[in-house]
């Protein structure tokens, strides 16, 4: 890793949120979301407060709202589920224009959308303002087992290497005129996944040997 660069969601900046210690940010995210999840939907002022807190934090972080908004698409499956909920839930029915839906289902769908949106926004803010290496150090300070943090550290470092490898394989497939359209093409894609595993495993072994030959001791603290 040469020049400083974060992962795809990282938004470089120097705001107070960027500079806050990572372990505090993770702890705050978990605490905040536990409170949000535990809040009953009827407490509307509480949700207004949560929204205000998030808005202030986003403004303070200097991350453009459009940057976060574009990444909110990750929430789409939740929204689809929320649309289905009022129809499958039981309980008293309520008229909604021409449709009749379950009242508790409707309330729950609203709660789900609000809480999940807060969750995605808060997580996005953490990801956008925290460098992956700081995040790992923060997790270690939060007493996450060192070995798990190490594995995550390798994953964060390998992320671009492996996804680039995947990209090169796709380029190679497409330059041979291949494009996947239906399940008949699965064997080709499946073999690509297999090849990716073999290449990843061999790369892991090579890197491990290189590390050992340079004095790597897995038991030692970094």
């Amino acid at each position, binding site marked *: 890793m040469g020049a400083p660069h974060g992962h795809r969601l990282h938004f470089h900046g120097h705001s107070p949120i960027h500079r806050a210690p990572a372990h505090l940010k993770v702890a705050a995210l978990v605490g905040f979301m536990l409170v949000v999840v535990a809040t009953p939907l009827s407490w509307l002022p509480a949700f207004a407060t949560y929204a205000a807190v998030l808005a202030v934090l986003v403004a303070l972080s200097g991350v453009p709202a459009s940057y976060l908004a574009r990444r909110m698409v990750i929430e789409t499956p939740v929204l689809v589920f929320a649309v289905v909920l009022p129809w499958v839930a039981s309980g008293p029915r309520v008229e909604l224009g021409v449709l009749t839906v379950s009242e508790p289902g409707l309330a729950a769908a609203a709660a789900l959308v609000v809480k999940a949106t807060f969750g995605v926004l808060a997580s996005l803010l953490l990801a956008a303002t925290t460098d992956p290496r700081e995040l790992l150090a923060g997790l270690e300070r939060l007493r996450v087992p060192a070995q798990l943090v190490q594995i995550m550290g390798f994953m964060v470092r390998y*992320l671009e290497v492996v996804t680039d490898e995947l990209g090169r394989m796709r380029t190679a497939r497409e330059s041979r005129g291949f494009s996947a359209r239906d399940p008949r093409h699965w064997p080709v894609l499946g073999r690509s996944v297999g090849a990716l595993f073999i290449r990843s495993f061999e790369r892991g072994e090579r890197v491990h040997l290189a590390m050992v030959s340079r004095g790597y001791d*897995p038991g030692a603290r970094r």
Partner: protein
Amino acid sequence: MHVPDGFLDAPTSLATAGVAAAAVALALRGARRELDDRVAPLAGIIATFVFAGQMINFPVAGGTSGHLLGGAMTTVLVGPFTGLLCMTVVIVVQSLLFADGGITALGTNVVLMGVVAVVTAHLVFLAAQVLLPKRVSMVAPAAALAALASVATSAATFVLLYSVGGVVPIPFDTLLTAMLGVHLLIGAGEAVITFVVVAGIMGVRPDLVRGARGVLVSRELETRMVAA
């Protein structure tokens, strides 16, 4: 498949987090037996492989596509303990760096896609290996069965968790039928992909597939004098 924030109530989320933490602690010990001192570097890159593998879209029809979940595949390839560690790390990184899956649902997601998927896959794979003929060609079918079972059990476990800590009253039978119906389809796709992937690796580097150790013939290197 990732459970978002606000889907299950706080006590259920905390309880599943406890279960997940205990299982991961167990896996950290077990993985040392599977990978010795190579645990961190190799588990790290295999986790990355799982993450990347989930990004490949397998087109179904009419513009829809599915992707691999990878629990069973990882278990067969690297063993249950390392497999669980890899799945856990993937889910944590997806939640913290990509906002995929709620932070309070982290324990739930690790239990569903990690613990339940890996344990089911491992047990079904072992059972299939006992029942099927002991041949190299049977590793991929056994892995496919494990994939189908792991997706179905994960879905059923989700319904169970939901009946305990769900926030919406949905009749248990309705939810179970709907979830199992959808996930049997997803599981069938997962089984086919797992079959193709494992069969592909078995054809090239069967020595890398941990689940194939029992059926691979170990061939000693022989040097012989050939009489002239």
